[in-house]
């Protein structure tokens, strides 16, 4: 443990101290000669693409090598957004509409696998794990609404965070999911007071979290070295009163509102007579005065949250977790939060700048990796990476895996609750927890779900491939026929498959085990040899790891 960056991270974790940047990123004094831009290696391109897309492929890696990281990002941000709702709306409506979740997941996979806007799709998925709504629960049958909500995240992935939280707040899917819809002003006679659900979760989960943070994400400490809560129950109630008076557009009544397919996808509207007009306590000692309209209250409340100092480090950590690493150094968090606070042109909340800062930071591609760099791949990304690398499709061209969360523990808008598939604070017992590190994705890497994924990879490699004669029209199959051409040569086969899935960086242990297994399979059965290789790689710890 002699690496200065690791020591700095551990010190900040153990002591609650604000680090002042990672040690290894400092430059020596004096004018350094500008080095020529180093050529990007295939391994670096893969690492970058596993952070910035739904899975590295050799083709895309070549583009990254040719363009460079920055130009690739700029190009990606200029791509038109691949949306979901237009496709859903082109289909005949099926009743009950919950069945159309298969279509929603289908178009999601098509965009995730084939969208030219890979970076936007990946960031939107990350946002969907922060601003969580889920098909599982009250929204099950409201497929247009969840689809439209996802498109909101796609369209605003590189927008401004302030706009994003307003659109999220007023979207009817969120209104239903966190019960702001038809939330009304107090009725003291009947012991009725505003619903606190959205008020609480917008702050706890979407913006500032529970405790005051330094810009580098470490906790601010009070006089007794104690953590400082960001809000109390009075503030929750203040915001709960703000979020009164909103319900579906086009409804004739506020209570038990009517809805239709359009009101499921357009912002909720204000009914002034149901909005509380008293004064309201917000964050940081701010009180909004009595007598404001619902729109004024909402704007004041969202501005109040948006300008809280926690948002930068909070969103920086959440997005770094989803894209790059589970244990960023305080310096990394601080650099990204600084960009959130000011994109260099005086704008706060510029998500395009934040995403760029995350991906271009030295710590996203460390010269000398340490044992806490990187993360466990989200299980769904283990699947999409394989599918992208091996051109997965089905006879119908569809990917209607509405049950994907059952196998992988996650799927698009399929979280079990607003706390997402896993907690950003999850640390399994053992060295990770003992050293105060986290590994969020390991919360769903249970013996049970891991085995589900392992068995799915087994099925995918051995049964659901292009050689199978028993596929149904919607069965998604991979195509490894090219690899069969080299299957007679064990080493060449391993190099080929590992080249597609691991950028060629396969450990000796894994290579040797695969080679031994391949000797048990006659060279006359190249398909089985390739399947075996893909199976053992995609179920290995090194494939589950995102460098």
């Amino acid at each position, binding site marked *: 443990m002699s690496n200065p960056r690791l020591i700095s991270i551990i010190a900040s974790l153990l002591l609650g101290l604000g680090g002042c940047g990672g040690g290894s990123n400092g430059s020596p004094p004096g004018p350094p000669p500008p080095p020529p831009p180093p050529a990007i290696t295939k391994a670096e391109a893969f690492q970058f693409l596993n952070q910035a897309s739904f899975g590295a492929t050799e083709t895309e890696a070549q583009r990254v090598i040719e363009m460079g990281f920055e130009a690739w990002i700029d190009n990606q941000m200029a791509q038109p957004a691949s949306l979901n709702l237009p496709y859903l709306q082109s289909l005949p409506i099926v009743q009950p509409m919950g069945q159309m979740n298969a279509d929603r997941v289908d178009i999601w996979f098509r965009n995730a696998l084939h969208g030219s806007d890979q970076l936007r799709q990946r960031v939107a998925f990350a946002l969907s794990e922060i601003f969580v709504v889920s098909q599982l629960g009250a929204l099950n049958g409201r497929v247009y609404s969840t689809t439209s909500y996802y498109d909101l995240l796609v369209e605003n992935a590189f927008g401004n965070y302030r706009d994003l939280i307003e659109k999220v707040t007023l979207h009817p899917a969120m209104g239903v999911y966190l019960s702001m819809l038809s939330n009304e002003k107090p009725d003291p006679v*009947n012991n*009725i007071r505003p619903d606190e*659900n959205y008020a609480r979760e917008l702050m706890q989960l979407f913006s500032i979290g529970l405790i005051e943070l330094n810009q580098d994400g470490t906790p601010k400490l009070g006089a007794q070295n104690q953590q400082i809560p960001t809000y109390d129950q009075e503030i929750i109630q203040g915001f709960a009163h703000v979020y009164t008076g909103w319900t579906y557009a086009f409804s004739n009544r506020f209570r038990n509102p009517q809805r239709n397919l359009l009101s499921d996808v357009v912002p909720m509207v204000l009914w002034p007579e149901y909005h509380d007009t008293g004064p309201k306590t917000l964050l940081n000692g701010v009180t909004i005065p009595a007598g404001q309209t619902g729109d004024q209250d909402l704007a004041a409340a969202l501005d109040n949250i948006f300008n809280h100092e926690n948002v930068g480090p909070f969103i920086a950590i959440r997005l770094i977790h989803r894209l790059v690493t589970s244990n960023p150094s305080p310096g990394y968090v601080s650099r990204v939060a600084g960009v959130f606070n000011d994109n260099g042109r005086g704008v706060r909340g510029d998500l395009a700048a934040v995403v760029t800062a995350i991906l271009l930071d030295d710590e996203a591609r460390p010269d000398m990796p340490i044992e806490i760099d990187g993360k466990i791949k989200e299980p769904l990304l283990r699947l999409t990476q394989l599918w992208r690398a091996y051109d997965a499709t089905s006879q119908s061209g569809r990917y209607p895996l509405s049950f994907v969360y059952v196998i992988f523990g996650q799927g698009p808008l399929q979280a079990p609750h607003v706390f997402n598939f896993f907690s950003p604070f999850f640390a399994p017992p*053992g060295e*990770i927890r003992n050293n105060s590190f986290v590994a969020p994705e390991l*919360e769903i890497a249970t*013996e*049970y779900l891991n085995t589900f994924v392992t068995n799915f990879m*087994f099925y995918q490699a051995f049964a659901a491939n292009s050689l199978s004669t028993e596929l149904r029209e919607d069965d998604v199959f991979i195509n490894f026929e090219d690899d069969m051409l080299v299957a007679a040569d064990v080493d060449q086969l391993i190099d080929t498959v590992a080249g597609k899935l691991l950028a060629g960086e396969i450990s000796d242990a894994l290579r040797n085990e695969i080679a031994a297994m391949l000797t048990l399979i006659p060279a006359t059965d190249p398909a089985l040899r390739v399947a075996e290789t893909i199976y053992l790689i995609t179920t290995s*710890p090194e494939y589950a790891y995102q460098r």
Partner: protein
Amino acid sequence: MKYLNRRDFLINGGAAAALAATPGMAYSQVIGNAAPFDDYRALVCVFLHGGNDSFNMLVPRSNAEYAVYENARQNLAIPQDQLLAINPLTSDGALYGLHPSMGGIQSLFESGHAAFVANVGPLVEPTTRDQYRNKAVIVPSQLFSHNDQQAQWHSLKGASTSKTGWAGRMADLIRSNVADQQMTTNASLNGTSLFQSGDQTVAYVMGANGPLQFEGFSTDPNSPLFEQRQAFGRIVDAQYDSIYERGFAEIQRRAIDSADAVSAAITSAQNSGQITTVFPTGGLGNQLQTVARLIASRDQLRMTRQIFFVGTGGFDTHDDQNNAQPALLQDVSDAITAFHAATVELGIAGGVTTFTQSDFGRTLTSNGDGTDHAWGGNQIVVGGAVSGQDIYGTYPLLQIGGPDDTDNGGRMIPSTSADQFAATLAKWFGIPDLDLDIVAPNLQNFAQRDLGFLV
């Protein structure tokens, strides 16, 4: 030389491998010298995710107390004449009833196999309304927040930064007494839980119907797929540079080790026909049925102490509570009642104690058609060892702004601590009195170390 072929994978691979328990599978990570237990005991935690509105589960039905309840709950009140009457052996002067969908629990209560613990919740020290409002006592951090209060129930960490769960600590404490067990003391059928996370022990996580077996593995050395299992295992056991790969590999290793033996145990219990009780369909019923099968196989797996974690969701009734609550509570009642009946069939009811936990109770006040996050709540305890037909602890006055309310939202301040609740269960489980403070770190702040609901 034996060859693998496609048929091996697709036919043998899918077949369940019959397997005797393999020596060396026990997880106990410390060689102990403590004596093994000479009896079998299991704790079954039924976690009601989201925060059960348990003041609609156990409700005062005598006129004066009902009037206070009805005034507080308004449109969320259960009609007085629909409450299922229960008759506790010890009276606090009021009469009580259960939610009308909980007939199973009513029967268990009246026959002495179920009890309630009233207004229990996470506390650091005894707390009154004045003390709470004047910040004169330490209270658990982030009250009313789902994940933080779930974590409190799981860990009993109070104001500390403990990172283990109280079932995890129990398993740590007894690890040398159960060194012969073929499965971890802690097993979850409802995902990873802090509750079962120890320092020296980990929980094994299976699905509602048990573990999955690995496709394409054989444990028969004569099968060509034996080598597949071995190779997979050696890959998992290789050295890795990152904490993430190591953490992932550790889970894979446990999965390989346990899948066959645990599946075989469940299957043999299923085939034995020992359990004829019909469980309700649905997640909780399935989970508890699997727990019953594992308990039936306790000798096969050489288990003497087990803690099971099962759970069900949907209790976060911010909306539409009057329509949602009956089915939620009926599922809890029916599943727990069936599970108890199964343990009676197995002749082990006296060795199995089932209890509920939930994030928190809910506001007595309404937000129109639902309720918000609160604090204290009522919990169910069921089993042959339970001193049933009684309500333990103090049922609060359900008055808005009254002596048990934090403020004027109807958030009941717990009168019994979750530490006392846990310690009572832990003592029965076999944890020595001196170690109860390790299981329940705030227990020392409360006079009563044993609530008395277990004999």
